[in-house]
Structure formats: structure tokens, C-alpha cells
């Protein structure tokens, strides 16, 4: 054990200087390829990783603790800061869990808008994955191309809710705003662009690219059993040949009415996962195209009618006394859901994002647990990195697509 003092800090009993052939290196927490604040302690034998120890917590903000001290509506903008690449999916997962607890029915237009936003966020997140993953591996131009399309997607989000990253675009009980005029046309145009770029730029540049294949094939291999045991979800699980997508298996919102496929890859490696992300974007575009005609057929109601929990529309508040009183109570005290507990899983771009909420009938949640997919994928690193070469470590981190906002919470 080290003698710890101010000049020689204490690093978890790690002895960086060894007498044998192994070497211990420290990667992160400030490393451009660590996707945030990941610290990896790697024990190397030559260039091979013998032992990997992921150290997290550098972005811990105590979001679960904050949830216990905030009313349900107050907490919603905080969920933006979980997976900040696709914040609407966090907003939705949280709102969905609370709605399950309240047992309220969401108006159809709100459902269409939510599903649209979720899929736009999925594409934005996947493009971000593609860009950063390619950059980590060394393909600079893909980064620029993918970020260009992502910017247009973020423009769409900005036009809808005014924010580019921290959207808060979903409310408990519905959505705050209707789509702006002509938004769906813009969306369809963007879908066309992304589809064109997918087929003609990204896939043509990467799919058969010799360097890309050499760097990704048989790197970061995880078998189906291991993936299930480690609690993997999303593309990490489907990349290992397990066909499980919560949108299909436990459908929420409109997913049961939409036609889409669940791409699966049984390659179990980074290349398979990369192909999966590309296919998922195509499926999301398919979903978005089905949603646009659905939107036109819906009635214009945006928030659920549940006066006990959710404020009435503004016109009613301004004209009817009782609606105003209820609004006042809900704003000053917050809603009081019934006693009970709920775990509501949703398929976020990274995997299974679920909120466990324990309510004791107070305006503050008694306990809120955020089941973040990246947390479990980070845990997996300690097994997946063993046996890999040091040059592949960055590829594997990029391929797991972890975001530290939701790992550390």
C-alpha cells in the first residue's frame, strides 16, 4: 500500500510501477475518446489488456436525490441532463413512468408528437454515435458529414421546443405545444436527406471500407449469454443476436400501431453493432413517414384530461374559476399521485431506459431510480476489454455508445 500524502496521492491501492512485464496505465477521466468522464485503469501485458477497471462517478450530480426533493413536474427538466444526446427520450421515459402511476390516458395527437420526437431523437443520437465512433477510429470526414445531418435534426427540435440539447419537450400528461406550421414537411425533407446520406455517404464510405472493417471486425466481442447476464440492452443486446426491442415486445405510445422491423446482428462484434445502428436509423425514418399522415387525422387536444393531476388548458384556466383553482393548487403544491410503485421501461437510443418510482402519495417521489442503459454497458467494459489490444480500447468504448450523463446520474 502506498504512503498517501499531499505529494503522492492515493490511487485505490494501485501500484503503477511493477517489477514484472505488466504495466498499469490510466486512461481518463479527461480523455477525448472516453466519451465523457470515464476513467479506465488498464493493466497491460505488452499491448494486451489483462485487466480493466472502469472508474465512474466523475459526473455524479445526485439526480436521484434531487428527484426526492422536487415535485414531479419540477423534476422533468432535470431528466434532460441524463442522456444529453437524446434528451427527449429521458423526458419521455420519466413522464411515461409517472403517467403509469397516475393511470391517465394520453390524447392521440400528443402520442403522435411524442413518438415523432422520440424517433427524431433516436436518429440524432445514432448520428452522434456514428460521428464520434468513426472519429475515435480515425475517420474524420464521417464525423463532419454525420454532424451536418445531426444539426438539421437539432434544428427541427429547436423549431419545435426552442432548445437544441436540453429539450424538455414532453410533459407529464402530454406535450406542451402543437407542431409548428409546416414542421412535418420539414421533417419529411430531413428524412429524405438522412436516408440519402445513409445510403450514399456513410454506408458507401464505411461498410466495405478496409480500414474500418479491420478496426471493427471481431473487436469487442460479447456473446448473447454474457450480454444478457450483464444486463445489456438496445443495440448492445441486439448486436449479439438477441431480438429484443421494448418498442416491439412491450409496446408503449403508438409503437403497436406502426410497422417497423427490429434489426438484429449475430456477429457479436463492433462491426455488427455499427451495421445495426445504420439499420435502426432506416427503421426510424420508416416510422416517421408513417406518423406524418397520422398526425393530420388527430384531434388537436395536447394534454390529458385529469383535473386532479394535470392543469386544464390555458383557455379554461382563464375562463373557468374551478380550473384556475386546480391549476393554482397543482402549481403551488404539485400533483399527488396515488400510493404505489412503478417500473416503466422504454427503448431509448442507448437501450432500456426505465424509471422506478415509489410514491407514498406525497408531491415528492419517495424514491426514484433511473435504470440507465449506459451504466450497465460501462460495467461490461471490465470484461469486454480483457484480451483486447490497447489500440482497440477506444473502439470498444465508442462501440458501447455510453453517455456519462446517465452513467453517473
Amino acid at each position, binding site marked *: 500500500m502506498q504512503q498517501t500524502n499531499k505529494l503522492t496521492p492515493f490511487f485505490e491501492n494501485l501500484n503503477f510501477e511493477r517489477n514484472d512485464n505488466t504495466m498499469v496505465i490510466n486512461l481518463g477521466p479527461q480523455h477525448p475518446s472516453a466519451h465523457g468522464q470515464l476513467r479506465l485503469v488498464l493493466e497491460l501485458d505488452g499491448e494486451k489488456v489483462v485487466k480493466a477497471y472502469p472508474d465512474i462517478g466523475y459526473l455524479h450530480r445526485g439526480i436521484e436525490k434531487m428527484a426526492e426533493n422536487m415535485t414531479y413536474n419540477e423534476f422533468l427538466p432535470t431528466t434532460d441532463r441524463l442522456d444529453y444526446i437524446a434528451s427527449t427520450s429521458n423526458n419521455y421515459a420519466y413522464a411515461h413512468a409517472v403517467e403509469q402511476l397516475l393511470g391517465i390516458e394520453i390524447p392521440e395527437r400528443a402520442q403522435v408528437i411524442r413518438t415523432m420526437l422520440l424517433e427524431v431523437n433516436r436518429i440524432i443520437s445514432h448520428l452522434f454515435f456514428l460521428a464520434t465512433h468513426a472519429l475515435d477510429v480515425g475517420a474524420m470526414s464521417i464525423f463532419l458529414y454525420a454532424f451536418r445531418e445531426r444539426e438539421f435534426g437539432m434544428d427541427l427540435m429547436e423549431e419545435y421546443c426552442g432548445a437544441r440539447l436540453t429539450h424538455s419537450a414532453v410533459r407529464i400528461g402530454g406535450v406542451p405545444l402543437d407542431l409548428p406550421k409546416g414542421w412535418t414537411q420539414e421533417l419529411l425533407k430531413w428524412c429524405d436527406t438522412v436516408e440519402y446520406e445513409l445510403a450514399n455517404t456513410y454506408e458507401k464510405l464505411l461498410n466495405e471500407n478496409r480500414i474500418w472493417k479491420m478496426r471493427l471486425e471481431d473487436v469487442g466481442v460479447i456473446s448473447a449469454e454474457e450480454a444478457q447476464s450483464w444486463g445489456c440492452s438496445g443495440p448492445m443486446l441486439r448486436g449479439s443476436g438477441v431480438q429484443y426491442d421494448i418498442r416491439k415486445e412491450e409496446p408503449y405510445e403508438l409503437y403497436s400501431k406502426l410497422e417497423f422491423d427490429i434489426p438484429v446482428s449475430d456477429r457479436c462484434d463492433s462491426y455488427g453493432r455499427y451495421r445495426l445502428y445504420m439499420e435502426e436509423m432506416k427503421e426510424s425514418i420508416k416510422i416517421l413517414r408513417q406518423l406524418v399522415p397520422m398526425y393530420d387525422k388527430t384531434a388537436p387536444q395536447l394534454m390529458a384530461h385529469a383535473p386532479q393531476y394535470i392543469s386544464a388548458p390555458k383557455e379554461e384556466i382563464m375562463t373557468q374559476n374551478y380550473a384556475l383553482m386546480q391549476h393554482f393548487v397543482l402549481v403551488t403544491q404539485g400533483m399527488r399521485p396515488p400510493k404505489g*410503485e412503478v417500473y416503466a421501461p422504454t427503448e431509448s437510443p442507448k437501450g432500456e431506459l426505465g424509471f422506478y418510482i415509489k410514491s407514498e402519495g406525497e408531491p415528492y417521489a419517495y424514491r426514484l431510480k433511473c435504470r440507465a442503459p449506459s451504466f450497465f454497458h460501462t460495467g461490461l467494459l471490465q470484461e469486454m476489454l480483457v484480451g483486447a489490444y490497447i489500440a482497440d480500447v477506444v473502439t470498444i468504448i465508442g462501440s458501447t455508445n455510453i453517455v456519462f450523463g446517465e452513467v453517473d446520474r
Partner: protein
Amino acid sequence: MRKYTPKDNVQKKSYYTDRFYVVPRVPRSEVQSGSHFADVVNSLKKFVRESYVELGQLIIHIKSTDNIKVLEILKDKCGYNVCSELSAVDYLARDGEFEVFYQMLNMSEAKRVRVVTRIKKDEAIESVVCLYKSANFSEREMYDMFGIVVNNHPYLKRILMPDDWVGHPLLKTYPLQGDEAASWYEVDKIFGKEYRDVIGPENRDPAKIDRYDTKRFSRVGYEVPFGADISDGEKENDIEYSKAPLVDYTKSQKQLDKRK
């Protein structure tokens, strides 16, 4: 009379209370015979203390010492091969117990079961890492956040908080802003505990904004000399705005494109 605030739960409480308000409960239903959940309950028969379905998920209450056996049966016989989440709820103030839950998923049936157990304050619980590797990080987080010791865990160590942190943040007794040890954490770590007196509570947080600090802050319209004592309030000064416009449109702008 000052309102009594209990020390065993310092989380935010509702200011408005209604003595006559009866909190409704999320509907629970019996496990229907012949369903998938009924099979699960049957195969766990001797361990189940209570079982019901709430919001589409089966909830099973068991004894804390049976957790390995129950999860083993769930995994091997009922096909619940994913433990998607595991954590605890602090009921120390009310019951003197923690509630530990395991959120299980059956992928072939797309069904979810929550196994719930209770442990006393200083009791430890057996690790389930031997069955589900995802429990590795989750149990470490549970230990970090609640101080629940997990027996036979391969590497039980704090995960989100620093190793030398005092206290367990998600306990109901732990305040949102952190406790005394948390506020001195940086000072203790960088300078040592003996420097607490030298630095003092007013300087321990360099980001702290003090309303009465006139060395670093002044309020617009209430400016005072450097370092003045303003504990008795400060005099209001008239704010004088500059009359000069930032951009003078009356003057003709330079015609840059004429140079071409």
C-alpha cells in the same frame, strides 16, 4: 410553536397537509390462475410471502436470506435471465428497514417480475453476482448510496462517490445539500483536517457567493467603497446610464463594398 421537523427524514416535505385526505392506492390485482405469473408464483411457492400484480408486473415479497435461491429458480426454471435493475428504498424512519428490490425480465415472454425483500438496518444481503453479472455495478451503487453491505460481492467498493466520502447520500437522513463532512471534503482532502480552523467556513467553498462580500461583488445601484461593511444595508445610488449610443446611425457608415 415551531413546527417539529423529524431528524430521521430530512427530505423536502409538502407544506400543505390535509388531515382528511386519504391517499388512493395504485390498483393491485390477484395473480390470475393459468397465467404466466401464476406459474412463476407456483414454482417459488415455499419462498413467496406475498404476491400480487401491480401495473402489469408481478411483485413477489420474499425473505432476504432466500434471495439467491429465489433468483436461481427464476433464472433456471422461469426464464428470467436478465436482472435489469436492483436497488433499495430507505424505510429506516418508518420501519427501521431497507426495502431491496430486484427487477427481473423474461425476454421470451416479455414479462417483468419485481422481487422485493426487506432487511434490517445493520443486516447484510447476499450478492447475486454469481447469477447476474449486471448486479456487480448495481450492488456497488446500492452499497455506495445506502451503505447496505453485500456479502460475497467480488469488489464491494464505492462507485459514484469518492472512496473517502463520509455518509451515504441516498439515505433519508442525509440532507440534499450534503452534511458537515461533505462541506469540508475539499479542505480535508487538499490541506488536511487541521486546516479547517485556518480556512474557516466562510472560505471553504470558493464558489460561494456572499451577499455581504463587497470585495468581490457589488450590486448595481448600491455600490459602496471596497471592503465596506454593509451588514446594516447600503445606500441607494442613482444609476447613470451612458447617453452615447453604441452604434451611431446618424453618421454615415463606411461603404466597404465601394473599394471593390
